[in-house]
């Protein structure tokens, strides 16, 4: 069964460094999302992406964050200058019809 793939599974970085989280959505999906979850708590919406542009974003998704779909298969989330509070599990999701979401297994980001 097709699945969403995220790499790396764990990322450790120093505060102030840039990180890029990578995702390969399911191939025929058109809608792409990033969410994050801190310590197994609520799942927070960051951004949705459709037709090569951001369709919605949350207050969390400030100028430090950006997303790209550079080559038609990868979908990346960049955090320009990481803060301690960016430590979380980051989930990528994709959808064919902007309804049922398929999630990857997540990237655990630890900012030291």
């Amino acid at each position, binding site marked *: 069964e097709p699945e969403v793939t995220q790499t790396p599974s764990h990322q450790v970085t120093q505060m102030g460094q840039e990180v890029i989280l990578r995702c390969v959505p399911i191939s025929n999906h058109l809608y792409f999302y990033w969410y994050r979850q801190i310590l*197994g708590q609520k*799942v927070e919406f960051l951004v949705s992406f459709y037709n090569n542009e951001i369709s*919605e974003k949350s*207050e969390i998704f400030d100028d430090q964050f950006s997303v790209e779909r550079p080559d038609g298969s990868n979908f990346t989330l960049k955090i320009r200058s990481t803060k301690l509070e960016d430590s979380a*599990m980051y989930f990528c*999701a994709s959808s064919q019809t*902007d*309804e*049922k979401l398929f999630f990857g*297994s997540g990237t655990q980001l630890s900012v030291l």
Partner: protein
Amino acid sequence: SQQGEEDPQALSIQEGENATMNCSYKTSINNLQWYRQNSGRGLVHLILIRSNEREKHSGRLRVTLDTSKKSSSLLITASRAADTASYFCATHNRDDKIIFGKGTRLHILP
């Protein structure tokens, strides 16, 4: 921003019993979905109910939606140890965001 809020936060029941989780939300929705998350893993879609539907079934899952009360419930019948997980409701809002609640941690006791 709108967010589903699940109730209870945690639930422990004996294997074989039914588990009921509730979700409340604040504004109009296109649909409401329930997802399951095993510890440390990604979320898995369980069931979707549209705003014009009142009840939906899928296997041992039964979902109801009351748009007048802005609430939904997820019933898992004949629970099994493998049902131990966190369950999240997600509202698909009119602004096209899919927003998750805080989740209910369900623990099935042997």
